Structures are given as C-alpha cells and as structure tokens.
C-alpha cells in the first residue's frame, strides 16, 4: 500500500475552529447555528461528534472541509486559514487535503467502482496507468478489489460505502470527514465500515472526524464530543481548552 502511506513530508494537519459564528439568514429570519464556538482536533485523532439533530454537527464538518464558510471566526487547518482562501483555491485545497464520506455515497452510476475511485485522481498530474494503480490499491484496501469493475447498482449499500471510502482516500488526503457514514447500514455492515475507518486512522495516520448518532460507532473513536454538553460548557471553557490543546498539538505531544 505504498501509495496510501502518509507522506513523510506532509506536516501535521491540526484542525482549529476559533470563535466561530455561523448563522443563516433568510429574509428577516436569522438562524444562529454556532455562536463563539471553539474546537481543536489533533492531527491523527479519530473524533466522533454526537448530539441531537439540528445542533449543527454537519455544519461543523462543512466548515472544517471548506464546503462552507463561517459568518465570522477562524478555520485553521495545518496552520492555514482556509476561511480566507478564494473559491478556486479552496476547491484545489479540498482536492489535496480532504476526503469526504457522506451518509449517501453519491457514486456516479455511469462509472464502475474503479472509475469512481479514479475520479479524484483526474485532478492530479498522475498518468492513466498510475491512476489505475492508485485506484486499485485503494479498492484493495477497502476490500473491494474483486468488485472493481462492478457498477454502483450492482453493489450492496455497504459495498457502495466502501467504494466511497476508497474514493475519499485515493488521493491520500490527511483528513477524512464523515457525516453519518453508517447511517444507512445494518449493524454488521456498519461495524465493518467503522473497523475500516479505525484501520485508516491507526495504520495510515488519517485524522478522522465523524458525525454519528450511533453510540456504538462512537466507541471506535479515540475522542467523543457530545456537542450538546460541549456547547453547554460555555465559551470560556471551550476557549480555555484551545490554548492547552493547541499547545499540546504544537509541541507534538
């Protein structure tokens, strides 16, 4: 799995959300989702975020992944303020740094598993042969090597999710953001997927942030954030956590 090893030159990708304000306004209505929110996640950590619906869990993932911007505050990843990047730079940045895994896999139905996994690589300078090789490696890693030429409609939900994971990791991003990755799966399949994520975290040092409603899923994580309680800690407590964590992160523990 040489292509999926953490490149030594890659610097630590700590995730820091600082003084985040996120609100949506539609007409006169202003929905405040996050207000003065702070969070730091260590590079290489496996964090589960739990909490009631509508609390802003997905919103947090979108902010970390550069899919959305905070109304105010900093989003700093690997020392870079991604909230300040232009749209095109942010797009490019996502391609290099983030792998997304959603509840719905959103695989392209017209492409085989192999084709779907190769898709992100068409943004890289890799040649055709290299792209095929990398995709094959990623598929092997998620245990789908023998299904490479099957199309999404020929795969089970769990298999589709595996292919989606292969697509997320194929360009070797340091961070994986998962929004209820096992939401559509039965217990057994969910456990397989979670074990796979755990493996990516353990063996390849991927930083994983996973939103889930499943208590059992949270057990796979090394840190569980109950968002409701976390927010209840209040601004000071959150803020107080940051410098500490940041320090410990920065000194590399």
């Amino acid at each position: 799995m040489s292509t999926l090893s953490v490149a030594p030159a890659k610097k630590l990708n700590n995730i820091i959300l600082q003084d985040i304000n996120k609100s949506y306004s539609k007409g006169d209505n202003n929905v405040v989702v996050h207000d003065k929110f702070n969070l730091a996640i260590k590079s290489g950590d496996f964090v589960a975020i739990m909490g009631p619906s509508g609390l802003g869990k997905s919103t947090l993932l979108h902010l970390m992944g550069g899919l959305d911007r905070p109304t105010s505050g900093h989003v700093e990843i690997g020392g870079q303020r991604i909230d300040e990047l232009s749209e095109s730079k942010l797009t490019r940045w996502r391609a290099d740094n983030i792998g997304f895994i959603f509840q719905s896999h959103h695989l392209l139905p017209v492409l085989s598993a192999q084709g779907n996994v190769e898709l992100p690589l068409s943004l890289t300078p890799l040649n055709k042969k290299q792209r095929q090789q990398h995709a094959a490696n990623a598929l092997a890693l998620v245990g789908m090597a023998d299904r490479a030429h099957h199309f999404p409609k020929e795969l089970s939900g769990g298999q589709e999710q595996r292919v989606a994971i292969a697509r997320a990791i194929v360009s070797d991003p340091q961070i994986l953001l998962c929004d209820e990755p096992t939401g559509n799966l039965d217990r057994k399949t969910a456990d397989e997927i979670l074990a796979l994520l755990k493996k990516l975290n353990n063996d390849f040092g991927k930083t994983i942030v996973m939103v889930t409603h499943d208590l059992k899923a949270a057990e796979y994580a090394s840190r569980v954030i109950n968002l409701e309680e976390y927010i209840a800690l209040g601004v000071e407590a959150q803020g107080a956590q940051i410098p500490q964590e940041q320090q410990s992160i920065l000194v590399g523990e």
Partner: protein
Amino acid sequence: MNLLELVFRNSFRKKTRFTLTCLSVVVAFFLLTTLAGIDHALNASVSNSNQYRLMTSHKISITRSLPINYQQKIKALAGVENATYVSWFGGYFQNEKNQLAVMAVDHNTYFDIFDEYKIPAEQLTSWKSTRTGLVISQSIADKYDWQIGDKVPLSSSIWMNKSGSFNWEFIVSAIYQRQDNTTDSKRIFFQHLYFDKARAYARNMTSWLSTQIKTDVDDEQVSKAIDKLFNNSDAATRTTTEQVFIKEQAQQFVDMAMVIKVVLIAVFFTLLLIVCNTMIQVNRERLNETAMMKAIGFSSLSLVKQVYLESLLMLSLGAILGSLLATLTLSQVQLQFADFLPGIAIDPSHYLTVFFLVIGAAGLCSLFPAITIKRLIISETLGARA
C-alpha cells in the same frame, strides 16, 4: 477513466431521451442544409444574368404580348446596342411531363445578344437558313438522343397552328453548349418567323423584348426612355434590367424561401429550447453528483466544461447526421429537380456555418446549467437527504 469518457457515458445515460433530443437536432439541421441547397439554386439563376441587358414586357402583365415592330423603335434609341424579341412557346415533347422551355426568337439578332450560348458557326448559319430549325442544348440532345437533321415534333400548350393542331414540326439544326448547369440548358429556340407565319392567331406580336445597352450608359435611363416611347400606345411597356426581371420571376420562389426561412428560425429556436431544457433537466437530476464532484475538488469551470461537451456531443451528432442526410437527399433530388430548379447545391461554406451554429448552440445550452453549477452550495445540496 478520464473526463471525456465520463462525458460520453453521461450522454448515453438515458438513451431514449438522448435519441429523441438528438433527433430534433437532426431534423433542424436537415432543414437548414436543405434550404441552403435550394437557396443556392435560387441565387444561381440571378447571378447568371447579364447586367447590360434590359427586359421589356407589357406594362400590365408578362402574359400580354407586344408588337414586334417595337424592336426597331428601341434599336433607334440612344445608348442601345441591339434589340431582339422572344415569344414563349411553352412546349413539351410527346408528353406534358417532358416540359421544355421552347422559345421563338428573332434569328437575326437573338444569339448576338445572348452570346453565352456557344454554337458552332456553321450550325448557326444553317439554323438561320432553316425555317423550322431548332437550337437545342447538348444535354437535351443527350437526353432524347436527338441529332442534327432529326425531325422532332414538339407540342405547345398555348399555341395552335394554322392546321388547327397543337403539334408543331421541327428539325434539329444546331446544338449549343453551356459551361454552367442552369435552367438555360433546358432552353430550345426556333425561328420567330416560322412561328409567326404558322400560328393561327396573334400575328406580329411577341412576348417580350430584350435590349442590349452600350456599356457606358446608365441602364435606368435607357429603361425609362424605352418605356416613355410606348407610354401613350395601346401596349405600354415596363422595362427593367435582366437581373431585376429574373429576380421578380423568382420572387415566388424567394417568397417561398422566405417562408421556409421563418419556419426554419422557428424550428431552430425550438431546437434550442429542447436541447436547453434537456441540459437543464440533466443538470438538475445530477445535482447531487455535481455537488459531490465539487466537494472532491472539481472546479465549477471543469464541471461546466463537462456540460458544454455533453451539449456539444449531442448537437454535433445531430448536426452531422442531419447535414449528411440532407446532402445525400439533395444529391438525389438534384437530378430529378434539374428541370425546373437546377443549380441545387451546397456551398462548402455552409458546413462552416453549421460548425459555428453547433458551437454557439452548445454554449447557449450550457448557460443555465453553468449558472446553477456556479451557484450551487455544496453543503446545502449534499445536506438535503433523500
């Protein structure tokens, strides 16, 4: 897997829709190319005319005749080089289906003025001295296998001769050549003198007169002078250049072409709406996939490019098929229509027009999807769960 392959596969995702939309493109480009061929024919006859020739007909209608002696009066005018007269015989050979453009002409002057008919000198001389002589084109000679000296009966749908018959006897005396393949090669000429002596009525009258003007005079002035000459007579005239005359004659075709053009624009507009609508629909169906590709790191530009290529593929396929079909059809029709609408052909530049139309239409059809893609908020689209 590369992006072109993805475009290709996406195109054929819904085969029925693709086929139907593509067929509408085929129809539009078939019509466009066909019209271009007909347009070419209509313009060809106009550009073949001579700018130094005037055409004088009865002021009220081309179907009314004029006195033959107008020829001498016109000839006497300043600025006039030569004048001749022509009567329409309206003939056919054996069967009314074999229509021929038979005209009785003044044998002394006609071919001096209409020098685009190339006739060997000895044949011309022989024709001039043969009262019932015919001048036919090489293509007619080939078609009916007529040779010089052959006796040929031609019938008129207008003129009865003194023996009370509509069948007239002729002898082939000369064969002319023309480089261009226009209506003119359907023309057959015979002596007006024979016509005048043999016909049962309307003696000393002619259908129209042609005047050759000197190259250094203003055609409009001479036209006015001719018409002024006969203004107060029983048969007042209307004189125009040959070009204007042919254009007016072709006007019915031109009007038809105009109608076709309007219909065509409507068809084209409809086509644009259909393809546009398809692309909008396609784009909406794939919004989730588009959002995912954006999340993965595809730029809006590259996604718009894919939509553009997809429109381009559909339009090109339709355009190529439609134009090809029309080209083939015209090449068949060309032979059958050669009698009354010759010169049907497609200018090579037409294909260039098609090329640019396709490129432009693909751009227009990608416009709305492009706006949607550009405005798409990934978190909202992917957040909306099924």
